[in-house]
């Protein structure tokens, strides 16, 4: 998937037709398989051959499956990424001169990744520029407005436009938002230090992932418990190397969730404290098929969908 946003210098029919030509050219080059930087270099040459002009353009290629982003920027204001933790960052890589600034311009590709539950915001300077105000103030205002859990693309776009007051020329404002949801079926992989204080953050990640995984409430709570028990065992038995890590992988299989908890310690499910053996009992009670694989590198507990136990 490609996202392109641009702004032609000038107004009226001439500018509109120039933008139309640029848009078709970008589309054609992208369809030919050129990457963002190559597209911009070619469009710049094309613009020159059409008699010149001046435009800013950001071209981004987004891999829907992985969230990988490749982009290049011809003098356009930097795209913004809003992350689920409420922070934002600018995509400032791959920046070179606007189209038309020189006959030959070398554009370089930058890359990034849009993680699940994040949003990518593209806009024109009409959104952030105000008379008697440095552009940085507008950019800051935009980042602040986006710094809230992004949610749906349309909601975020509406919020951004609403938060940017005094738009002098509404026809000069364009906002394009791409929100990446946690893709159902995409496995969750969490790697944390093998410490008791990791268990809370681990559950937070699991809860967020489960919220989008379309599991019924009870099944989600059971998964949280089973993974929690296995991770607690891993914390208790983690020995070498320091700092040892726990790696939890969860995915939804046709029969239900499948999860794996890997650590670098050695434990065999036998109780180390009078009541600790219950952890393994609980895992077994919650999961139809439990595999415990011990090797010198550590222990891996694999759990497959549980039997239909809906008691309690």
């Amino acid at each position: 998937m490609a996202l392109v946003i641009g702004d032609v210098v000038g107004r009226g029919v001439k500018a509109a037709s120039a933008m139309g030509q640029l848009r078709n050219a970008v589309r054609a080059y992208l369809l030919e398989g050129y990457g963002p930087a190559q597209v911009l270099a070619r469009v710049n040459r094309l613009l020159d051959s059409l008699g010149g002009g001046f435009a800013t353009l950001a071209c981004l290629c987004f891999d829907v499956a992985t969230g990988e982003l490749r982009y290049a920027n011809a003098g356009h204001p930097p795209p913004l990424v809003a992350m689920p933790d409420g922070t934002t960052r600018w995509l400032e890589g791959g920046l070179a001169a606007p189209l038309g600034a020189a006959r030959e311009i070398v554009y370089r590709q930058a890359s990034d990744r849009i993680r699940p539950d994040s949003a990518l915001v593209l806009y024109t300077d009409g959104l952030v520029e105000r008379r008697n105000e440095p552009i940085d103030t507008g950019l800051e205002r935009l980042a602040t407005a986006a710094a809230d859990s992004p949610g749906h693309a349309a909601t975020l776009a509406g919020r951004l436009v609403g938060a940017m007051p005094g738009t002098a020329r509404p026809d000069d404002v364009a906002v394009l938002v791409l929100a990446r949801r946690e893709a159902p079926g995409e496995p969750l992989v969490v790697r944390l230090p093998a410490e008791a204080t990791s268990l809370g953050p681990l559950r937070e990640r699991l809860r967020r992932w489960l919220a989008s995984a379309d599991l019924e409430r009870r099944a989600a709570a059971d998964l949280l418990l089973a993974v929690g028990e296995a991770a607690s065992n891993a914390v208790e038995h983690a020995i070498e190397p320091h700092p040892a890590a726990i790696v939890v992988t969860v995915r939804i299989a046709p029969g239900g969730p499948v999860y794996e908890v890997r650590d670098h310690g050695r434990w065999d499910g036998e109780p180390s404290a009078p009541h600790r053996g219950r952890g393994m009992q609980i895992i077994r009670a919650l999961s139809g098929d439990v595999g415990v694989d011990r090797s010198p590198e550590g222990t891996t507990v694999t759990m497959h969908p549980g039997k239909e136990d809906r008691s309690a």
Partner: protein
Amino acid sequence: MTPLLDFETDALPDALVARPLGDIDMAVTPELETTLYAAVRERGSGCLVVDLGAADYIDSSGIEPLFRLHAALEVDGVGLIVVAPPGSNAARLLGLVAMDDIGEVRPSLADALDRCGGRELS
């Protein structure tokens, strides 16, 4: 160090009610145990009710202090009653494996307090 565990306590005539809130796991176990012991010692109550109904998460590590607490309190003649309302995470956990050595388990606070009322206070 900031406490990891949020707690509500109610000192009632017949019982001391402790209600841990949020997630109860290995990270908060030591704090849970210390807080409960301290509360009982200070109060000298004849009955300690641990209401697990408000726990967003509880696992076997989180419940571990209750085993030790039960054993210790029994010596002093203090009763331990655990509240695990139907449908709660605590009820789910207790339903998965037999845990008959954590004291009495009751489905509601009212139920637990009824039991305390009939108890011989130490």
